[in-house]
């Protein structure tokens, strides 16, 4: 309804301000309503979780989001696509290259814009480097949530190299706006390929180090194994994608099942959650990975480990892309006011956190009629209430950390 209300005409809604589904009157005497967030060290952003607890046992957890809502979709109806690309950076700010990539692909599919080969390879390299960087953050902060302070710093030390590479390519360390409509904004600088290879050679053995430091650590395994178990059917029905879905044993990856861009030209494997004793696929030449006892398919440990193994395969993809990198244009010349046809397109890409989808509806103008961003963390987070039942208070950060939420794309 049109809102031409003044303060006087609003009914007394202060009493209902953000009324939680858990009413205080619902509580029994021994229960407590605890507020975790919006500012909290382990909620990975401004997420508010209202927990109904009985001592250390969490009976119910209700997430409240919207604290980082920045009206991206409304702005999308006022900007041309190439102007909207920086907005996509800020949705999942840890995987900005991937966001740009998916949005650019969606608009190019709608408008029928062709992208030169070199640009496609550069996009893949950047997207996979960002996947490594994002998984490093997720791995490090998950360790931090569990009380292991050191892997966080090792992960960020490695990430510094990736950010240096990005800074060399486009000048920014976090929000790049590098992959844009028609290609990429700048060509790769001189020496980028060599530095990238140097980094990959340095980084690949580190993943085994992280496994020995954190993944197989007995205490870490006891904190995360059999915690927050999500069955495969539930994962699919609740719309989970990415490592959350793969951790439940579903071998589904958009890069393999519905290949977009040029992912079908690369050889790589995709890890899934496995029971104890299982060996996730690791590239040849690397030490074998193994699943410790106590772990269950679909638990927090498996979701976390899928991300760690994915880093191995991203390294392989980048190596192949660097080897196959052709010369040529890095961007098609797209005219300033390209009219989008009167149609809609929905395109999804495999982001580090799941499948990011953009629905772009055109109406014949250069500015889209509607831009809808389907954030993977939005769907992944919706399972929280279903999973955090009758778990311990210490398990809540374990579950949220394993789902790996970034509030930027939950709220947009």
């Amino acid at each position, binding site marked *: *309804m049109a809102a031409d209300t003044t303060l006087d005409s609003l009914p007394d809604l202060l009493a209902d301000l953000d009324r939680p589904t858990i009413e205080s009157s619902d509580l029994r005497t021994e229960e407590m309503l605890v507020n975790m967030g919006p500012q909290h060290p382990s909620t990975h952003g401004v997420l508010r979780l209202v927990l109904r607890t009985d001592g250390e046992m969490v009976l119910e957890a209700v997430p409240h989001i919207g604290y980082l809502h920045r009206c991206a979709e409304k702005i999308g109806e006022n900007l041309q696509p190439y102007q909207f690309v920086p907005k996509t950076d800020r949705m999942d700010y840890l995987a900005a290259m991937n966001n740009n990539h998916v949005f650019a692909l969606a608009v190019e599919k709608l408008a029928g814009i062709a992208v030169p080969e070199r640009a496609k390879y550069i996009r893949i390299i950047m997207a996979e480097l960002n996947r490594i960087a994002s998984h490093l953050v997720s791995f490090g902060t998950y360790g931090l949530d569990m009380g292991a302070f050191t892997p966080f710093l090792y992960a960020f030390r490695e990430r510094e190299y990736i950010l240096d590479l990005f800074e060399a390519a486009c000048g920014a360390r976090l929000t790049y706006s590098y992959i844009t409509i028609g290609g990429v904004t700048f060509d790769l600088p001189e020496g980028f390929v060599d530095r990238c290879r140097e980094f990959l050679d340095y980084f690949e053995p580190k993943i085994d180090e992280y496994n020995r430091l954190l993944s197989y650590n007995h205490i870490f395994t006891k904190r995360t194994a059999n915690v927050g178990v999500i069955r495969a059917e539930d994962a699919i029905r609740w719309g989970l994608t990415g490592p959350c879905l793969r951790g439940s044993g579903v071998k589904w990856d958009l890069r393999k099942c519905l290949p977009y861009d040029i992912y079908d030209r690369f050889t790589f494997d995709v890890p899934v959650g496995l029971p104890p004793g299982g060996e996730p696929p690791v590239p040849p030449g690397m030490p074998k990975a193994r699943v410790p006892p106590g772990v269950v398919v679909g638990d927090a440990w498996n979701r976390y480990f899928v991300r760690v193994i994915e880093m191995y395969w991203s390294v392989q993809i980048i190596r192949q892309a660097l080897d196959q990198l052709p010369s040529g244009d890095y961007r098609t010349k797209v005219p300033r006011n390209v009219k989008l046809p009167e149609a809609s397109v929905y395109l999804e890409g495999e982001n580090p956190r799941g499948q990011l989808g953009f*629905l772009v509806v055109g109406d014949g103008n250069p500015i889209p009629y509607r831009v809808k961003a389907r954030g993977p963390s939005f769907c992944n987070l919706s399972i929280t209430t279903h999973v955090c039942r009758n778990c311990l208070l210490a398990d809540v950060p374990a579950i949220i950390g394993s789902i790996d939420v970034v509030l930027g794309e939950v709220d947009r």
Partner: protein
Amino acid sequence: MTPEEIARLLQDTFPDAITDVAMGTPQPYVVVAAVRWPQVAYFLRDDPRLGFNMLRCLSGVDRPAKNELEAVYDLIAMRPADAGPDAYWLAASVFAVVVRVDRARPRIPSVAGVWPAADWHEREAYDLFGIVFEGHPDSVEDHDGLHPRRILCPDDWAGYPLRKDYLFPIEYHGIPGTTEYEMPNPVH
């Protein structure tokens, strides 16, 4: 199954529910009547030929020119490969369904019982467009009637921000909401 085959199957099974078909576009879809939508949804999910088990996205679109609000449901059918547990799952089909409702009284039955993923998506569609999803599991009752609880805006927010005629409130609990020159929706 190709989108054409799916559309034909739906038209054969629910001749009165499918009001329109659009196949030549980058996003092929059928238009389903709101009243019959849950039945069609269950059919889409449970029929062995279709098997759409994941709701990828639910987007609202405001069409004031036609006095309509649209809800676009993007579906995908994922199933394990026959070759065994080590093989990648197959994307059997990709499809979209559009449900159009009147802008003055937009009501669509909720499909949160069919795909629990719709839970939060429907809350967002209500929050930003005002489409009331009847039977939503997280509904609240207030002066606007029974509707899904808002998700991104505060629970007592007035108005539906993504509508084309939305005016930003002058004030929210004492916080001024207008931009320059007191215009809630300035055009530069």
